[in-house]
């Protein structure tokens, strides 16, 4: 069976360091996958390969909706379908909130200014920030900035959303507002791959939880099974460590 996102034998080297050691992963359309694992296990590297922010070796293959993720002309197409939300938001500081959201639809899709602005305002309402459209990112809290970043990714109407620890840079009191938005998104049928340390979110929202360690996928299971009956020792040790502190 070939998934909506299909990852075959993904190998990634940083110089001589073997960061991903042959990942095979099929993700279905509309599936919500949470990726967990210790620091340095390759979680970020894995999802950054999906839209090819990281190069990977030629004997590896990733397909999104049947399109190979290769450098060249198809890459823009893949990236337009795959949105990404970063730990550090990466909003464009010289643009207002609304302009941040409008930029990609206008430049990549050729949407008119008026249509892009209307869409931006709609998306801002969806993430609860309709009153902030004319502010610059520096005037927003971390939680608000991350919600803008989500709206910005949504503006391209992506089929896939990648999240790399979207709440790790936030003050604790702001984590909830971002997770709420993501929870709503998970209901919409968009395919989500979420690297997170929020085990509660993974337990409630994920269709499948993937545990990585040492550049490999150690275990993948639905959350009920993953959290209550992990098969691998390494998974158990990890869960002990993160759930008990």
């Amino acid at each position, binding site marked *: 069976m070939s998934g909506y996102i299909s990852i075959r034998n993904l190998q990634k080297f940083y110089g001589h360091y073997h960061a991903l050691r042959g990942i095979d992963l099929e993700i279905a359309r509309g599936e919500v996958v949470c990726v967990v694992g210790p620091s340095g296990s390759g979680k970020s590297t894995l999802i950054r390969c999906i*839209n090819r*922010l990281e190069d990977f070796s030629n004997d590896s293959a990733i397909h999104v909706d049947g399109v190979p993720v290769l450098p060249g002309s198809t890459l*823009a197409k893949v990236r*337009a379908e795959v949105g*990404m939300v970063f730990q*550090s938001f990466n909003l464009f500081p010289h643009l207002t909130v609304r302009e941040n959201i409008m930029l990609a639809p206008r430049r990549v899709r050729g949407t008119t200014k008026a249509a892009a602005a209307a869409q931006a305002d709609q998306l801002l309402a969806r993430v609860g920030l309709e009153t902030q459209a004319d502010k*610059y990112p520096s005037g927003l809290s971390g939680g608000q900035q991350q919600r803008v970043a989500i709206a*910005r*990714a949504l503006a391209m109407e992506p089929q896939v959303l990648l999240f790399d620890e979207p709440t790790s840079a936030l003050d604790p009191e702001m984590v909830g507002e971002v997770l709420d938005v993501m929870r709503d998104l998970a209901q919409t049928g968009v395919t989500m791959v979420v690297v997170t340390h929020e085990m509660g979110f993974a337990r409630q929202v994920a269709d499948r939880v993937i545990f990585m360690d040492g550049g490999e996928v150690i275990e993948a299971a639905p959350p009920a099974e993953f959290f209550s009956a992990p098969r691998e020792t390494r998974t158990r040790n990890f869960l002990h460590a993160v759930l008990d502190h």
Partner: protein
Amino acid sequence: MDLFETFFNLEVLARSFPMLLKGLWLTLQLGAASILAGLVLGLALCMMRLYSARPVQILTRIYIDVFRSIPLLVLLIIVYYALPFVGVRLSPFASAMTALTMVSGAYTAEIFRSGIEAIPKGQFEAAAALGLGHRQTMIDVILPQSIRMVIPPLTNNSINVVKDTALASVVAMPDLLKQATQAQALAANPSPLIGAAAIYLAFLLPLVLLVSRLERRLSRGRV
């Protein structure tokens, strides 16, 4: 006062003023043309230095380093006196503009590069993840942020270009300095030189102060 009569002879100054103005006009034209051409050249060199094929990158780097090292006066004299030997005969203005542009372009390229490299990697990644191409990323995301940072060093460079226009008098271009030396010879009095110095200062000192202010503002916080 004898000294005052010698250096600030108002009568001589008044008489030479039209000449100085004519020189000033040429100096400003040369300065502005060289600054603008240097900006265009510098941006192109910067893009080649950062984003072209490896051999082009290396050549660009060599160009930049060579033209930042060569004394401008030497370059100017080569352009004006040596190039005719290979059939390239440029007017004094064109020679001066060529030399100034080539050097200013090299400095400008490095200024742009530092401005681009100061932008966090996350900005490039966010743009790429949205599907923006390289050109769009540069135009819409990176350069608008870099420009703010590079305005003080670019203004500094522009000040240097205007100062260096005075070298053009060596190739007989009737710029401000050349007019002043001629007026001095005519009047047998150095006041026109003092007048020229005052005019240079009147234009450049405010710019120097502006750069200091901009730098202070930028170091205090963003935007």
